[in-house]
């Protein structure tokens, strides 16, 4: 018990010192920027951890949920564009409703013709196709109208003009809803298949976001999302800050941006703490014990009367909702929604590395993994440059090999992440902070 606590204090202290070092050696702005994304990564890895570490579900769809969270930011916070709504917004909504009705009918038919596979496929496919065509017939002209309306400025439906902070819980709910639908169809699959299926579904979600310009502006990006914290420019005009910086002889531009970043950090930290306490309570509760029992031995848990399928769905929904919230936070921090920037390496696999290196199955480990891996993901570029410089120090300054290696030092990041994962799996498969045996 004490060893576990010591280790937590030691590693968290180490992480804190690393961030301080960056603050002293590089700049406080960089350090705080890293810290903000560290917190978001920690929340994402908590989401994956409750799925993989606590319940053994392989979810490779983190990218999709993060992107959905980002989309929520746009839909919640951007101003309403009334004229666009009148141009075709309602028609698109109508088309979507009709499509869902047809999907429902298809589902019923699928269940109805249980015993005649030929009829089953014929009827459900044809009903589905009719529904799809109807949707396209109603929606296509409306979508064209929406997208051609001032396409440089809007060209999409806009949002509902609420403060952006509301988008975080809404992103959680939205991601939970999507996760429920995905879980319903995909959770029957076993480990490898589930991994591939969730990866595929997250790609489909991303393709949708990239190409349905009427909803998301697609690759044209949504810029200028409102912020939950004041702007640097406004801060620079406030009296108290001007006085403060004059008294201590500091640059007002640097101080104002540090204040803004600190405001973000405190918001994020608050969210992280709330989610962390929630997860700790959950994993100590009977529900958490049941989840671990299912993870360790599915068959015997089933024999004890636990509804494995339902529990898996529950935990899939909760974890994905958390990732959705983290995605919304990240878009809030960026101030813009850029669908093209979502890549599985950065948003799915990196989060997995965080969970595994940090220590799957316990929340302290997941948070530490999020901080540590994100820190090295950012800092591996200068670090990689340093390593290459060290390795090639014997070569001439104008040698071709040295110059080529120095130029491509940025790619050291992927090599180092891969090595970290491989070494962690080999020599510390339980992660830096091990899961405690609970009796």
């Amino acid at each position, binding site marked *: 018990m004490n060893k576990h606590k010591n280790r937590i204090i030691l590693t968290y202290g180490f992480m804190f010192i690393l961030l301080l070092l960056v603050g002293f050696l590089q700049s406080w702005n960089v350090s705080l920027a890293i810290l903000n994304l560290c917190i978001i990564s920690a929340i994402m890895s908590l989401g994956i951890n409750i799925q993989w570490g606590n319940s053994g579900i392989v979810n490779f769809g983190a990218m999709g949920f993060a992107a959905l969270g980002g989309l929520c930011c746009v839909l919640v916070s951007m101003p309403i564009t009334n004229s666009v709504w009148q141009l075709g917004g309602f028609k698109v909504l109508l088309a979507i409703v009709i499509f869902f009705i047809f999907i429902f009918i298809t589902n019923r038919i699928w269940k109805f013709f249980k015993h005649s596979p030929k009829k089953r496929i014929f009827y459900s496919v044809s009903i589905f196709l009719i529904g799809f065509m109807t949707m396209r017939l109603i929606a296509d002209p409306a979508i064209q109208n929406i997208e051609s309306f001032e396409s440089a400025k809007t060209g999409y439906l806009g949002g509902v003009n609420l403060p952006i902070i509301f988008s975080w819980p809404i992103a959680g709910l939205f991601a939970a809803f999507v996760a429920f639908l995905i879980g319903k169809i*995909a959770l029957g699959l076993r*480990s*490898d298949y589930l991994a591939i*299926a969730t990866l595929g579904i997250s790609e*489909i979600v991303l393709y949708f976001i990239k190409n349905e310009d009427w909803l998301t502006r697609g690759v044209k990006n949504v810029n200028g999302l409102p912020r939950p914290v004041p702007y640097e420019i406004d801060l620079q005009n406030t009296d108290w800050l001007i006085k403060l910086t004059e008294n201590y002889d500091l640059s007002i531009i640097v101080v104002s941006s540090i204040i803004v970043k600190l405001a973000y950090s405190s918001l994020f930290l608050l969210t992280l703490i709330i989610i962390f306490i929630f997860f700790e309570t959950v994993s100590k509760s009977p529900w958490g014990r049941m989840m671990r029992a299912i993870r360790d031995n599915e068959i015997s848990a089933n024999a004890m009367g636990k509804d494995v399928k339902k529990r898996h769905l529950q935990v899939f929904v909760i974890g994905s909702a958390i990732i959705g919230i983290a995605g919304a936070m990240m878009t809030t921090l960026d101030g813009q929604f850029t669908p093209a920037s979502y890549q599985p390496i950065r948003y799915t696999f990196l989060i997995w*590395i965080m969970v595994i290196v940090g220590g799957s199955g316990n929340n302290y480990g997941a948070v530490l993994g999020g901080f540590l891996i994100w820190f090295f993901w950012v800092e591996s570029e200068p670090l990689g440059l340093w390593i290459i410089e060290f390795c090639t120090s014997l070569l001439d300054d104008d040698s071709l090999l040295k110059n080529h*290696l120095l130029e491509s030092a940025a790619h050291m990041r992927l090599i180092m992440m*891969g090595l970290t994962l491989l070494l962690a799996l080999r020599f510390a498969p339980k992660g830096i902070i091990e899961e405690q045996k609970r009796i």
Partner: protein
Amino acid sequence: MDFWNAITLITNYILIPGLSYGCQLALGALGVTLIYTVLRFSNFAHGEFMSFGAMVSILLMWYFQSLGISVYPLPTIIIVLPISIIITISFCLLIDKFCYSFYRKNNSQSVILLIVSIGVMFFSNGLIRLIIGPDDRNINDGERFLLKAKTFKKMFELNEGLAIKMSQSLTIIITLILVTFVFWFLNKTKTGKSMRAYSDNKDLSLLSGINPEKVVLIVWIITGMLACVAGTLYGLDKSYKPFTYLNLVLPIFASAIVGGVGNPIGAIIGGFVIAFSEIIITFAYRRFLGYLIPENFLPETLMQVLSTDYKIAVSFLILVIVLIIKPTGIYKGKLI
């Protein structure tokens, strides 16, 4: 005449691109399936092995070009293939020795090996970018077309042209040769048979004296060969960019699963199913129908099921549908 125009159009835009893309996917899926049946894990790093093979081919090609060796009208990269295959196989064997073999000996769960393969994916992707850089490269230095659209139009006096790229025809020919070889090896030779026995029932095959080390070695040799050739052909057909190979992993898995994981024939069929459905669903049929039905019946729209932006998403969609409805695939494969 209109009928033949329509046929040419379909051949030019669906049949030939579908065939060559299907061949590339099939080669990849065959590798994934072999690794799955024998070593029992999903190798997410397979795309990177392909990329590595292509990279080695390009480096060798540059060396050959500097020596002034060329086989015009064929692209130079074709003659370096044997050497790059050997290098790719060694790379695969090294990766297996340092990353995978440990977990195989410990009888780890397949999920753990899957996560290891993601680590390998990161590592090899970084390594490739470190060596050759992330840029887009055109590597076809031979004749571009085997049959030009203009020549075809003149020959048959049609409105529509049929163009066959050199890279496409090479892809199809090399795939045919390679696949025949792999099937001959698996079904006719003693080593191939021992491999199949090992994948069917590991314990029984060990009892009958099959050397597991040798089976693993052979599997990596075949996989390395397939990956190298598939990667090089894909790079030759489109262009070489390390990033695209990351996105190729999912269509390859889709092909393997749609065909039925663990079934070599299924992998090939799956590759073509995925390739053709991607193209068929995103093709705009307006011009095609224009030749067949009178103009006043022609609808206003492009007659496209999904826009071309969704091309790759189609393969994922098919993957998900197959996983849910018939997880064993077309040819009854294993359940992962």
